[in-house]
């Protein structure tokens, strides 16, 4: 066997790498060269005979021990604060549990139930709350974290919303082939419970296996936070990123219904993608969610299919209608302000609200908002009053809500306020006992406004 290293090789001089530093080898040492400690820097020169301590006291220099600069860890990760701000907590295990009946779809339009509290449906298999959460039907500052589980008050206005459902369902059951469309706007003073009414409507719709399409806050559409582009044919500005989000919400909330929905014809999404006739609508949306370029087309496919006979009923809601009645923050290439109605999504919603487009069976429900700058044109349109020709109001606002039923959301009646206060008291957040004196006082101070009623009940008087 020939050794791999030949004797000749041992005799050849070692190859030295020109760039590689080589450890300096002493002639004789037992310490391995790399494990030896590096040489200490030289101390004071041997000429100075003074001790270092004495030297320090005599020097005029101020010696400040510099602390090493440590990179501070940020208090919050990027996006963490927004997540905290937007987090919705729906239960509080510290709160006392209150036994309440569930808000089922049987209660639609039931006048006798008005003035009682109902719990939102929750259970092992019931995913309604999760789906509502996906639709962003719950908002922050609605005091959900104070209670053991989400419960809502059944009000007179809830009965009126239920009437819309009743009318649509009546047509459905009689088998008429006619179109059943209801359009309504919830309008009232601040804190009167419009968003909660939307929540109640969505709860019913989800229980009834309707398709629920919800724009939770119209402000997101107009404040210029999402990207936008002009679509040549319709001269509308598309917001594809937002539409993708919206489709995602629709998909999460309506899985079962969308699975059952079959396409009536083939469609082309974007430039290349195609969906065939007979495909499930769920598949279309799942494709579109992955690619924002397909989102708008997919959304149109969904709306188009929902307008055909045989499609499931739809609930299309938009909160904060006022926000799309004022000029948007978007600009066109000529730096002109884009009118909110020229944005594709608000335009589509208003088309349904004003009856220009319609579902086969469905409800279009909008809620106004108080946290908005003045919208004189919308106010005039909601009141239905004649506009003074010298008043320069936006002429596009009035027709956009034409024909929609206006549901006035009023203050709570005494019975409703009593039910709410009892619920607060039983949940353990209200310390006073609910007797006639306390009730009268709190009802008078809040003037029956639900938001104020909560704060008066919670507040301790000094």
């Amino acid at each position, binding site marked *: 066997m020939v050794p791999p290293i030949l004797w000749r090789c041992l005799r050849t001089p070692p190859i030295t790498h020109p760039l590689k530093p080589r450890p300096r080898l002493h002639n004789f040492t037992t310490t391995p060269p790399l494990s030896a400690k590096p040489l200490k820097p030289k101390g004071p020169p041997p000429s100075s005979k003074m001790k270092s301590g004495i030297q320090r006291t005599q020097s005029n220099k101020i010696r400040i021990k510099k602390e090493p600069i440590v990179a501070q860890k940020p208090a919050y990760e990027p996006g963490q604060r927004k997540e905290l701000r937007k987090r919705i907590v729906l239960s509080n295990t510290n709160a006392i549990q209150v036994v309440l009946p569930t808000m089922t779809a049987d209660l639609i339009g039931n006048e006798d139930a008005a003035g009682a509290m109902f719990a939102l449906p929750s259970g092992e298999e019931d995913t309604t709350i999760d789906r509502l959460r996906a639709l962003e039907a719950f908002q922050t500052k609605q005091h959900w974290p104070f209670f053991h589980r989400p419960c809502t008050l059944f009000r007179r206005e809830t009965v009126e919303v239920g009437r819309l459902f009743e009318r649509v369902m009546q047509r459905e059951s009689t088998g008429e082939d006619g179109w059943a469309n209801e359009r309504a706007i919830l309008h009232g003073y601040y804190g009167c419970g419009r968003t909660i009414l939307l929540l109640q409507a969505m709860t019913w719709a989800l229980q009834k296996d309707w398709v629920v399409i919800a724009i939770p806050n119209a402000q997101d559409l107009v404040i210029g936070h999402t990207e936008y582009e002009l679509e040549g044919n319709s001269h509308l500005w598309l917001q594809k990123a937002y539409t993708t989000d919206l489709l995602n919400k629709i998909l999460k909330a309506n899985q079962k219904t969308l699975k059952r929905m079959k396409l009536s014809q083939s469609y082309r999404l974007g430039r290349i993608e195609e969906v065939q006739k007979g495909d499930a609508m769920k598949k279309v949306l799942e494709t579109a969610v992955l690619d924002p370029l397909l989102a708008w087309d997919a959304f149109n496919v969904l709306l188009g299919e929902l307008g055909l006979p045989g499609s499931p009923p739809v609930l299309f809601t938009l909160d904060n209608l006022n926000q799309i009645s004022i000029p948007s923050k978007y600009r066109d290439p000529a730096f002109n302000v884009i009118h909110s109605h020229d944005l594709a999504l608000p335009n589509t919603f208003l088309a349904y609200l004003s009856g220009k487009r319609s579902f086969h069976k469905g409800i279009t429900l909008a809620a106004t908002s108080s946290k908005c700058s003045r919208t004189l044109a919308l106010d005039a349109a909601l009141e239905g009053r004649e506009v003074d020709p010298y008043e320069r109001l936006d002429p596009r606002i009035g027709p956009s809500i034409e024909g929609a039923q206006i549901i006035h959301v009023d203050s709570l009646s005494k019975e409703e306020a009593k039910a709410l206060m009892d619920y607060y008291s039983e949940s353990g957040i209200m310390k006073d006992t609910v007797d006639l004196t306390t009730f009268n*006082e709190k009802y008078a101070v809040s003037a029956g406004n639900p938001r104020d009623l909560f704060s008066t009940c919670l507040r301790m008087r000094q």
Partner: protein
Amino acid sequence: MNVPSPRPLNSISLLWDQTSEHQTTGITNPISSLSSTTAVTMATAGSFLQRCHRALTKIPRLTSQLTSQPPRKPFHPHHPRLLTTSTTTTTTTTALTDLSQPLPEVAPRTRLTPLSPSYYTGSPEYYDNLLALQDLLRSHQALPTIHGDDAPVVKWKTIDEYRLIVGDRVKPSRYNKVIHILDRLNRIDPAIMPAETKEVLALYMRPENQALGRKIERTTDNFGRAYAIGRRKTAVARVFLVEGEGEALVNGMPVNKKFSRLHDRESVLWPLIVTNRVDRYNVFAVVRGGGLTGQAEACTLAIARALRIHEPALKHALREAGCVTVDHRQVERKKPGHLKARKMPAWVKR
């Protein structure tokens, strides 16, 4: 009422044992005339005056002119301040017992003794008066009192008139002390008020002028509305209060639309809340001027006043809640040389 003016007493508040006779002759006449002319009911008031001005009552006892008078009521038993020495009292008693006999010969006194314990205070008349009132109050301390709002409305003598009684210059703060005691005496339950106190109080009352002091009695109108005005800062609230179900309209709006702040709304309805009348009255208010807080608190005052027209008995409760007293504070004006009302420009060296 004939109130004696004891001003000339200034000169004789110090009793000179030996020389008192010819000094006091000048003032005995008004005293005797007073005692003879006043009615029998004035006897107690007279004794009070007697206590107020000890110098006034003491001196005549030593004089031979008044020896025929019946002995007056002795000093108040609660009165602890008899500064006169025992020798003086013995001389007075002997003088009173042996009416017809000449004064016994006593060794001439070596030390002069002031008769009034307040002699060295600087204004003995005022302090005698105050001490006497305090004694009276002390003796009636345990009597049941009523609330100040229920006490009979009395107008006390003004400071100038009081100065005439005391016969000395009285500072306003000292006058206020007296008025404070009188107010307290006036709050004694009228059913058991001692006659003596009544008469003492009558001494300090101002005669009532019917034409001036006429108070307009406010009532509800024929629709059952009570109308009242309240002011706060620069806001003026006019309120109509009717019996109803607890609706409140301010400038035609429900309270939650007019006042978005919860605290303001509570202020508006405060008189009704504290008296537990929220669901019994309807409020219709018109508020003008000022800001929201001023308007809310003007409403408070007006509603409280209107409520008192409906139910006058609620006055205490409303006073306790602070709805009766007017807050008359206004914004302080800006002054020339100041940046604001009080703020001065910063000091600059030059």
